[in-house]
Each structure stands twice: as structure tokens, then as C-alpha cells.
């Protein structure tokens, strides 16, 4: 745990340094730039609350990817599951009218079901036709993309709008805000606690983990691998769907075109950086969100374009993932050297 923490911090520092070099080469002032970046993402209540709120879709899709990858299934369908979850919550919010205490849980449930349904299609294709989820989830992303585009252009189109979008959902389904703090963070924290508990403390999570590490061992040990596969697919789909639903309920309160942006792919990237660890996913999710939130402020104050953040993110991913392998190799090598020296004397 401590080793992971150290290697993560080191990786980020090295990446920031590389970013600084890139800026220097281009003639920007790195210190002023980073100053602007972090003061607009962490410096004060308002920036902090923006960072927190934007971290929710990153963390939830990241958790979805982490749990899937750590348990075996290569679920790469977060973008599609995200969109279907968002669509389910939106349609629910358009036609179901309840008091807020009921409306919000119902919409959340719909988002979970929508995501699970979409990953469930991939799970069934694997079960019945032995199609690899690695391919089917990617294909289903494209279908979800165009299906939701159609849905907001025709059946659920807001007649008063000029571009594809739905009308606003029932106000009872809007997540309450306290000042600038959006309660989507609370939903995310609850979701994290639940999946962490399942994954780390329950029998099912134990079997998922062991199956992800060595499926033949788990199978010989009596775990029901097929059933676990389906459960993991449904759960991770539901998490991605929840991310989509919360976007609608916290943000524009309607399904607009390009709602998903890059949240889900960023989530997959965060899972990789965190090496599929759940706590790591949350921490890296917060960090990446702070970069993205600070990007606009950085552009405002300095001449550095906000696209620079994409470069920085990519550098961070590469440095941390490569560094993790390197650290192990170094540790091994130094152990071997010490041992060899002992023997040679």
C-alpha cells in the first residue's frame, strides 16, 4: 500500500516535471501555469466543489472498469452503458412524477438498470454464442451512441430546441445543491462504499478477485465462474449507467448531444493507472478531475491552451504505468545483487 502511494506520487511529480519541460520549450512559464491550474481546481471552496462534482462520472466509470478488469471480464463498454443509463434516467424523469425523496431514488435505480441491461447484452452474447465481451462491449458502445442520438432527435426531442436534446426532467429529479456542492458526490460515495464492501469483504467479491487472478484455480476451488462472470458484467454495467444518470440529474437536467464526452474512456484510463485498485481509482479520479477543472482557469490566466491537459494526462498515465513495472524490476534486481554478493564472498 505504501509502495503504491509512493510510486503514484513520484509518477505524478515526474509527469508534472515533463509537462514543465514541454511548456518551457514552447516558451510558457510552467510555475505560473501550474499555479493557475491548481488554484482553479483546489484553491477555495468554489473550485474544490467543481472538482468534486466533475470527479463523479470519472470515478464511477473508473470503478466499473477496475472491478471488471480485476475480476476477469474485459468490459470496455462503459461509454455505451453510461449513455443508456443516462437515457433511462432521463426518460424516467420526463414521465414519472413523484416527490423528490422518491423521484431521485427511482431515477437512480433506472440508471443502474439501464447500464446493467446494456452490459447484460454483452454477457448473454458471451454465454450463448461465446462472443468475447472485449469485442461486443466495444460494438455496443457504437450502437448506444447512435441509439441515444436517435432517441433525443425523435421520440424524446424537445420541440422548442434547435439541436438534439430532450426537455428538462421533472424538477423533483434534480439532485439538490448546497451552495455549489452537488449531492451527486454523496451518491458516488455511497456507491463506492457498497462496491468496496462487496469486493473486499463478501464471498462474491473474494471469488471475483481470485477468478481475475487465476480462473482455473478458482474453478477447481469450487467457484461458480460462469455465474460470477454474469454478476460482474451486470454490476460494472450498472456503475457506468449510474455515472450517466447522475450527469443528467446533477448537470443539464436533460439529455443533450455529446453528453458522455470522454468521461467513460477517462474512467477506463484511471482504472489502468490505479492498477484496478478501488481506493486508487477514487484518488486518481479526484486528481484527474482537478486537472480537467483547472484547465479552463489555466487557459483564462495564461496563454497555455487547455488541450495541454490532455497531453499532461497522457504523460501521467505512461509515467505511472511504466514506473510501476520499472520499480518492481529495480527492486528485484537490487535483491538479486545483494544475494549474489553474499554468495560470492
Amino acid at each position, binding site marked *: 500500500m505504501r509502495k503504491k502511494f509512493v510510486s503514484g506520487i513520484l509518477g505524478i511529480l515526474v509527469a508534472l516535471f515533463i509537462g514543465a519541460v514541454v511548456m518551457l520549450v514552447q516558451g510558457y512559464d510552467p510555475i505560473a501555469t501550474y499555479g493557475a491550474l491548481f488554484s482553479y481546481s483546489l484553491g477555495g471552496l468554489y473550485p474544490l466543489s467543481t472538482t468534486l462534482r466533475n470527479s463523479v462520472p470519472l470515478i464511477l466509470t473508473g470503478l466499473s472498469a477496475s472491478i471488471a478488469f480485476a475480476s476477469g471480464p474485459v468490459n470496455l463498454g462503459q461509454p455505451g452503458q453510461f449513455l443508456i443509463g443516462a437515457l433511462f434516467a432521463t426518460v424516467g424523469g420526463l414521465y414519472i412524477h413523484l416527490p423528490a425523496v422518491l423521484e431521485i431514488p427511482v431515477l437512480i435505480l433506472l440508471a443502474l438498470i439501464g447500464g446493467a441491461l446494456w452490459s447484460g447484452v454483452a454477457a448473454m452474447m458471451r454465454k450463448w454464442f461465446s462472443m468475447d465481451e472485449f469485442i461486443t462491449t466495444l460494438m455496443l458502445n457504437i450502437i448506444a451512441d447512435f441509439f441515444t442520438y436517435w432517441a433525443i432527435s425523435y421520440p424524446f426531442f424537445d420541440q422548442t430546441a434547435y439541436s438534439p436534446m430532450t426537455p428538462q426532467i421533472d424538477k423533483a429529479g434534480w439532485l439538490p445543491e448546497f451552495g455549489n456542492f452537488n449531492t451527486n458526490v454523496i451518491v458516488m460515495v455511497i456507491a463506492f462504499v457498497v462496491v468496496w464492501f462487496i469486493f473486499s469483504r463478501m464471498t462474491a467479491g473474494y471469488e471475483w478477485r481470485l477468478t481475475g487472478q487465476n480462473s*482455473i*484455480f478458482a474453478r477447481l476451488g*469450487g467457484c461458480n465462474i460462469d455465474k460470477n462472470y454474469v454478476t460482474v458484467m451486470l454490476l460494472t454495467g450498472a456503475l457506468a449507467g449510474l455515472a450517466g444518470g447522475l450527469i443528467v440529474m446533477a448537470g443539464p437536467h436533460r439529455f443533450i448531444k455529446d453528453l458522455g464526452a470522454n468521461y467513460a474512456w477517462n474512467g477506463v484510463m484511471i482504472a489502468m493507472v490505479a492498477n484496478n485498485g478501488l481506493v486508487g481509482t477514487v484518488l486518481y479520479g479526484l486528481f484527474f478531475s482537478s486537472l480537467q477543472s483547472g484547465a479552463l482557469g489555466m487557459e483564462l490566466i495564461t496563454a497555455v491552451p487547455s488541450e495541454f491537459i490532455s497531453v499532461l494526462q497522457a504523460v501521467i498515465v505512461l509515467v505511472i504505468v511504466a514506473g510501476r513495472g520499472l520499480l518492481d524490476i529495480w527492486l528485484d534486481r537490487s535483491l538479486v545483487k545483494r544475494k549474489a554478493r553474499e*554468495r*560470492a564472498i
Partner: protein
Amino acid sequence: METIIEMKDIVKVFPPNVVALDDVTTDFRKGEIHAIVGENGAGKSTLMKVLYGLEPRNDGKILYRGQFVHFKDPGEAIAAGIGMVHQEILLIQEYTIWQNIVLGIEPAGFLGTLNQAQAQRNVQAKIDEFKFNLNADDLVKDISVAAKQKVEILKLLYRNVEVLILDEPTAVLTPQEIPQLFTELKRLRDSGKTILFISHHLDEVLDISDRITVMRKGKKIATVDASETNKEDLARMMVGRDVLFLSAREEKRPGPVVFSIENLSYIDGNQHKRLEGLNLQVHSGEIVGVAGVEGNGQLELVNCIMGLSQPATGHMAVNGKELTRAEILERRKFISFVSQDRSKMGASVKASITDNTMMTHHRLNPRFTHWKGFLLDYKYSRQFTHEIEEQFGVSMGSMDAPFKSLSGGNQQKVILGRELLLDTPFLLLDQPTRGLDVGSIEYVHEVILKMRSQDRAILLISADLEELFRISDRIVVMHRGKIVADLPIEKTNVEQVGYLMLEGKDKEDAKEVR
């Protein structure tokens, strides 16, 4: 005779801390056959791979013809004149012999085209020079294993190698083919080549070599002249103590039948029959050993028993309970299983030791869970791990450390502990001592015998005849997917079983026993 290779103070450590070669110093002379003997894992192959440039060394020096050398890869070693023939045959089946041999150093003709006629002629000349009795135009897939091995040797001779390393060359040969190989190796030696010969068959080694280096646990024990030693001395040096060829069992009458298979057959995905009409019974308090050359159906038998493969015909039962098509979890109520490959089937090396000990127990023993099996009781599983640690003498740092941090012997103890504490009537042990050091092997044998005295039924699959004769009550021999013999231990001997393993039938004169 002049020394051609000197290896000085060679140290090789495999990460994280397995010392494979511990300060090994030895020398090889020009024009000798030099055998390197030792048990599995003694470091014989590693020493040769270090010499050949396949494994980098961590310390030490190598002198070749009086010069310090450091081969970075096998290509450099071959160019310098040292070549190795591996256990597995690495030839292109669809090519002819000469095509395989010139591969990589083809004689080029006009515009870099392959001069086929010349290549073919060159290869045939080499074959005739060493009297190898091969036809350069034959396709490799059409020739015997022994001939393929000759092609491998020729490949090196064609590259003008002076030192030939052979890694257990007789392992793939039938008993009839071995003398022929030896004649050829002796001829090579007489023509001035140096041959380094890895083996653990002492009879062979005494037959063919001029000098013998004995290794044990990564250390060189001695280098002796073959004419001045004998089998017993070599065995003592290899194992580090007098080797008891005696049985370790106490007399015990077996009880009722616990495990039985009837007419079991298995057909693999390519429609090959891998198991054919197996009948086998194991009684309580009995150890039945399964002997056979690897690849004669043992793996398929294990898979059918454990439920990884579905048999085509036949039945299997434990204590009268029909398990032929049962779910794996159902089987595990009756069967404990120790696999031959710890990291592939026996454990998750990345997971913690505790995560590994609770496998299967977490489903079968309600003490490991709460809430009707949904919530794990980590406190209890840690207590259970501690119990295994005490009862089986495992030395572990922390039970939360990853499984791979344990040594091989301790890993096997943890797996044995987990499986034996399942308390099942039947134990399936697939090469439970593979890759372990001598001390651990003895410990595992003790545990198996203890299980026998507790009236468990035990099926022990092993490639090691000595092990089988040491602890089994009965030996069945598998050959090409069939059980060709079922013999009480008192009525057979190593020679008979060895012959059955290779030929699948009894030698006429071996039937009268001792």
C-alpha cells in the same frame, strides 16, 4: 588432455531470491564426454544455460580456450563454438532435413537466391562425415524422434561447433534408440568434440561419460572420473545422504472401496481418444500409484476426475456417490486435490496466503462465512491459516504477504494443508513433490503416509518411480491412455514397471520377479 572451458565462481540468482547456482567452479576438457548429474532443480540446466549465454550470470567468470568470454546470447556462443541441444525438438516439421539445417546460414547464389543444390550437398556431406545415416531430402515430420534429435545435433555441427551441450537427450528416446545415440556421441568425442551431457539417469551416465560433475541445490558437489565411481556413490552425492531404496510404509490392510472409476474414456477436441476404458479402484487406507511416461493420459485422467473435462463414457464415484457429471463444488466435498503445477492450478500467486488457504473451504465450511454464506469471516480464515502454519510447519513472514513470496516447499505445504484439512475421503495427488527439495519431499511423503493411516483413499500420480515404490501399496501403469497393469507393490519391481511404462506390455522374462 587440455582444458577447453573453465567456469569459475558462477553465481546465478533468480528473482526474488532463489539461488540457482551457488559459487560453482568446474572445468571441461577437450575431447571428453562430461556428464552433469543432479536432481530436478539442482542447477544442471541453469549452469549450461549460463555457459551458452541463454541466462545472464550474476557473478563469476568463464574461460573458453584460455580467454575470458561473456556470451550475451546463444548466437554468440554458437559463433564461438559452443552449441546446445534442448530437450524439446525445435525444428520446422514441414521442411526437409537440409532446409532445417541451413536455416539462418543459407549459401547464397545469384542475387541472394538460395543455392539449393549446394546447400543440399553440403548437408549430406556433413551427414556422411559423422556417419549419421540420414537422408538430407527427407521431410522432418516423416522421421523418428531419434532422427530429429540427430538433426538438432547436425545443425550445430554444420555451424562448426566444438562443444556440444545436450539437455537430457535420452528423455525423448525409446530404450532401443539410446545405445545408438551413445555410439554416435562417442564417435563425435573421438573426432575431438567436447560433449556436455545433462542427465539424472545414473546408469546412462556411467555408461557413456568420461567424467561426471555432481550438483545438488545449486552447488557443485564433486567432479569424478566415471571409471572411479559407482551408482551408489553418485546417488549419495546427488541426494546428500544414503538413498533408501526401501519402502517407508507400515503394513496395513486396506478397507472398503472409496474411489472407483469404471470404463472411463475421454475423447479430446481433435477427436483423439486420450483415455480408453479405464477401470480403477482405490480402497480406504490405500495408496495407489499411477506410473507412466508423461503424456500418456495422466493429465486427462486428472481433468476428468476434477470435472475440468467431461468423459465420453464411464462412471466415477466416491463412497458410492455418483460424481461423473457433478459440479466441481459437489466433487470437492469428496475429493482433495494437489495439482502438479502450483502456480497454474494450485494457487493464485498474486493473492495473499490467507486468500489462498480459504479457497474451497469458503464454500464448504460454514465457519468461514456469515449471513448464509454471503459475508466472509476474515478473522476465522486468518485463524485457519495460522492453524496450517503450525500444523504443517510452514515458515511465512506474514499471512497477508502474497503467495509467491513463499519458497516452493512452503507453497506446497500451504496447498497440502488447505486440501488435507478439507477432510475428504479421497485424495488426488498429481506429482505432489515435483520441483521440491529433498527435505520437503520427505515431509510430503510423511504427510501422505499419515493420511493413509487415517484411512483416506489416495491416488498418487508421479513420474518418479522411486517415489511410487517408496509409498504406494499398488501401482497401476498408464500407457497411451490405457491402464496396462495393476500390480501390488510386493509383486513387482522398478524394472518391470519401467518396461511397462515404455512398452505398454510385460517383457516375457520379467514376469518372474526377484
